[in-house]
């Protein structure tokens, strides 16, 4: 599965568990409008570390604060290189 599909899959899973409705995941979707809240993203980042083996936010030298879904996916794609 590609990184993007894995992220979409995990986001759907977390949204289900948290009883949230997920917005359609377009690249320009603002993350805060996706339906997940801070806690949802915290769980998502932890699950992605388990499935993808990376936490690009904690390992990066510079602070990263992605704004859109596309940014978020890019952070993982860059982190996986």
């Amino acid at each position, binding site marked *: 599965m590609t990184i993007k599909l894995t992220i979409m899959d995990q986001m759907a899973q977390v949204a289900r568990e948290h009883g949230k409705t997920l917005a359609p995941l377009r690249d320009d979707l*603002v993350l805060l409008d996706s339906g997940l809240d*801070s*806690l949802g993203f*915290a769980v998502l*980042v932890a699950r992605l570390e388990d499935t993808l083996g990376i936490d690009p936010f904690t390992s990066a030298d*510079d*602070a990263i*604060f992605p704004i859109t879904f596309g940014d978020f996916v890019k952070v993982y794609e860059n982190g996986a290189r």
Partner: protein
Amino acid sequence: MARAETLPLRQRLAGALPEHVLSDDETRVSVAQLLHGTSLDGRAADLAGRSVLIAASRQLTAALALIELDGVARRVTILPPDTSRDHLASIVADAEIDAVVIDNGSRWDSALDLPVRALCTPGIRAGRNAAAAAAQTEWILLTSGTVGAPKLVVHTLASLTAPIGGGKLNHAVWGTFYDIRRYGGLQIFLRAVLGGASLILSSGAEPVAAHLQRLGRDGVTHLSGTPSHWRRALMSPAIAAVSPRYVRLSGEIADQAILDGLRATFPDAAIGHAYASTEAGVAFEVNDGRAGFPLTTLDHAAAGVEMKIVDGSLRIRSPRTASHYLGAAPAPLRDGAGFVDTGDMVEQRGDRYIFAGRRGGIINVGGQKVHPEEIEAVINRHPQVRMSLVRPRPSPVTGAIVIADVVLRTAPGHTVADSKIKDDILELCRRTLPRHKVPAAISFVPTLDVASTGKLARRHG
């Protein structure tokens, strides 16, 4: 003549100008107007000398009631919005509550049967009618206890305002992501009104972007929140709507990433992180943009604040600490010498002390304290579970999240059955616990370490 810090809040606000307002997403109220009127429909006299529960649904009405009742009520207990109904009876009993202030929309309206009930509205009626100031009002703040029930922490206006300097801020507009019904937010409320500033309050259901746009529109100059609040704000395009002169963090460990992120977003702002807890009050502020605090902080604390590190944890003695807990058999809040043990563990790295988590394994999830024992008790109810250990996992979003290691009664191995048990345990947690206490992940482990005390071995950090 009474010292200024022992005067009731209303008298200390006497210099408020008409342009100093408290506002939320619906209403703006002038502080000066409240000084010559009532938000309680003239009922303050009925609340004089009583122990009053502030059970408002809005921060704005809670703020108005607090201004009107300090120096009038014997005690005000401030109910945070997420208080569980299960704990209400013990709060009422422990704080000897005999009156309640609600507002339109308060969810406690039908749950409370108390001798006196008063309605607070942001529509201020003219006419001064509060009873003469009695003794110092006790301000009771709630903080999370070990088995879920909140602890009741006793402050006074004097201890709450001791960290606040006497200076007035010129044309300052404070904003806060905190709820002012908890210590961190209450500090900002008092800082704003005593400093002659306006304050923009958050509203429960308001989206982050709408809140940021409102802060920008109303010209926020001083903005405060936890690192988790700030991480969320930095993920919103609407962050561009605000340009504060002062950015403040407290309530959680401020790591270097969030400090750097704020510096990059607000290159011209002063950025400070404060160390504070409900029990210990505000101890110190760090303004050099680096995580942790300089070793010299211990010797150069603010006037009246003494700090020391004993057995790795930070201890604080100052006029800013709370005095005691309420309740039938309360634990001591301060030791014999008057020091509050914060339970926050620190480690020396070079010329800094760095926060290394909490003793006893207490986990801070986005500013909310989580006691692992409470979650373990729920997990251990599952018939297949022998024992469990809940521990923190660092999170770049909320500082930490909780995960669980579980020992099963039968050795794990059957993959399908194991996955069913995991789902069952998580379902049990979701049914029983608030969301931030539900483990993000569960691992089955063959065994857990038990310390010589007979308790599960927990490592802080």
